[in-house]
């Protein structure tokens, strides 16, 4: 029952192997975290899976279909969505509009129907707005709905991105450092939110620096170093793994 499987994925930038032969898989309802020191290739890996970069080698299989290097908007149609480490919100739109944008696939009809404001367009817009308000409530942003997204705090924007991604009702959700730059309270909120989404059957792939959070919520952890997978397993076994400790603390410390 694998939903997303990564098979031997790799990419080189000018001769440097940024990611090399990485494989793992994610099941529905499971939270898989990718960890590793800075520059280990986590975000690069994410960009390949989500179709932002074209992998040099390997495959991405979503729900039995080869979706390697497929454009992100086609991946979205197949149930994959992501958030970004360096926030990508629609700054000059309101918080509500940002969230409604997540309903695009469910909401969009024919452009002529939109121009003429036909009842079908109005109905879809109403449904999308109702759903978006519901989601904003879930991430605790309902009171900021009419504000311009650019005026929100960093932590709020992170939650807005998650709300927008949830609007797609994805089967697979890729979260790139959802708690980065958030304070302890915000981190805990995001933490609960992710667990909740996973509990509803969504497969979650997570890149995160906050180790406490990773250890707390992950079912499975994949460790990258210098673009290679050096370990994987459940949180307990990974945290005891000598190769992982060496990668994080330096080889000498581990030997000593």
């Amino acid at each position, binding site marked *: 029952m694998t939903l997303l499987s990564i098979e031997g994925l790799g990419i080189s930038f000018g001769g440097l192997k940024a990611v090399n032969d990485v494989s793992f898989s994610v099941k529905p309802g499971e939270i898989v975290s990718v960890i590793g020191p800075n520059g280990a290739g986590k975000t690069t890996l994410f960009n390949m899976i*989500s*179709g*932002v970069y074209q992998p040099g080698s390997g495959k991405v299989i979503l729900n039995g279909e080869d979706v390697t290097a497929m*454009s*992100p*908007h086609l*991946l*979205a*149609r197949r149930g994959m*969505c*992501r958030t*970004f480490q360096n926030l*990508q*919100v*629609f*700054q*000059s*739109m309101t918080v509500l*509009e*940002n969230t*409604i*944008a*997540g*309903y*695009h*696939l469910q*909401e*969009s*009809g024919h*452009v002529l129907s*939109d*121009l*003429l*404001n036909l009842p079908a*367009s109005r109905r*879809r*817009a109403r449904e*999308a707005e109702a759903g978006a308000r519901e989601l904003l409530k879930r991430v605790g942003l309902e009171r900021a709905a009419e504000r311009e997204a650019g005026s929100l705090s960093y932590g709020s924007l992170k939650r807005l991105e998650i709300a*927008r*991604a949830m*609007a*797609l009702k994805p089967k697979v959700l890729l979260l790139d450092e959802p708690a980065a730059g958030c304070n302890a309270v915000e981190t805990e909120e995001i933490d609960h939110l992710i667990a909740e989404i996973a509990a509803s059957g969504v497969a979650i792939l997570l890149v995160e620096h906050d180790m406490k959070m990773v250890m707390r919520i992950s079912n499975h952890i994949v460790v990258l170093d210098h673009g290679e997978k050096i370990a994987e397993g459940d949180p307990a076994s990974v945290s005891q793994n000598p190769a992982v400790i060496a990668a994080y603390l330096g080889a000498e410390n581990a030997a000593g």
Partner: protein
Amino acid sequence: MTPKNATLLALAILIALSPIFFPSSFYYRVGALIFVNALAVTGIVILTGWAGQISLGHAGFAGIGAYACALAPVHLGLHPALAVLLGALISAVLAWLVGRPILRLKGYYLAVASLGMGILISMVLNNERDLTRGPDGIDVPELGLRALLKDAGLDLSNGQFWYFFCGIVLILGAWLALNLRDSATGRALRALHGSEVAAKTVGMDVARLKLQAFVISAVYASISGSLLALQNKFITPDVAGFMHSVEMVTMAVLGGVGSVAGAIFGAAVLTLLPQVLTVFAEYEQLVLGLVMVLVMIFLREGVVPSILRKIRGRGE
């Protein structure tokens, strides 16, 4: 009342009541000219203000619309009203053909491609003398609607008829644009303008959306060109010239490229100026450039959105 209805109502009232203050019947003509320009600029708002794409050849579509009205009735025997539609159709197809390969690319390639397209259309209109009579211009047949209205008991002068007819078409164009703005398509256009990669991850087909915006805006420009030709009953290739394209963009930028109300305001100011100050005609290019620079430095969002922001800021 929603902002959409408020804008439309204000526009309708302005169009209906302005004639009370006209010092002479000449101003009906100026008004009609404003509406024709505002219609084209509304298309620019959709393309540039929302989708974030720049066209430097939109006058080319106006040229197609204008010459369709001059040529189709004579050569194809079409009624001028159908010629307007034919022009719009040709413009839409051409925009689709030019935009489809270009808009798959990221960046401002459309500006360059549309610039080339506009120049080509202008060259054809200037040089195909057998068909277009070249730079001297060509006569355009009567639309015939005024005569119909007269038979029905509504006797308008030529200036009045075109004033109100273009005004109604502008209200219709503004209504369609404002509908689009808050629809799924309009929201997607504004979203991809904000972050293309995020727009893709929520499933938006960015290339297709940009193409839709380009085609729609081309139809606006085409109809604007048709109305200009029909009311003047004469058209020259200048309608498709590069300066006309720059004028459209400047009007949009001055008023506020993200706002339909702003587009109409910008069109009104830059259409009125040369009529009111005759010296302006000589320095038109200079003034257009100056307006562009000053707006970019002091009112980057354009006049109307900047003022609205001030008013709202005070209200809070």
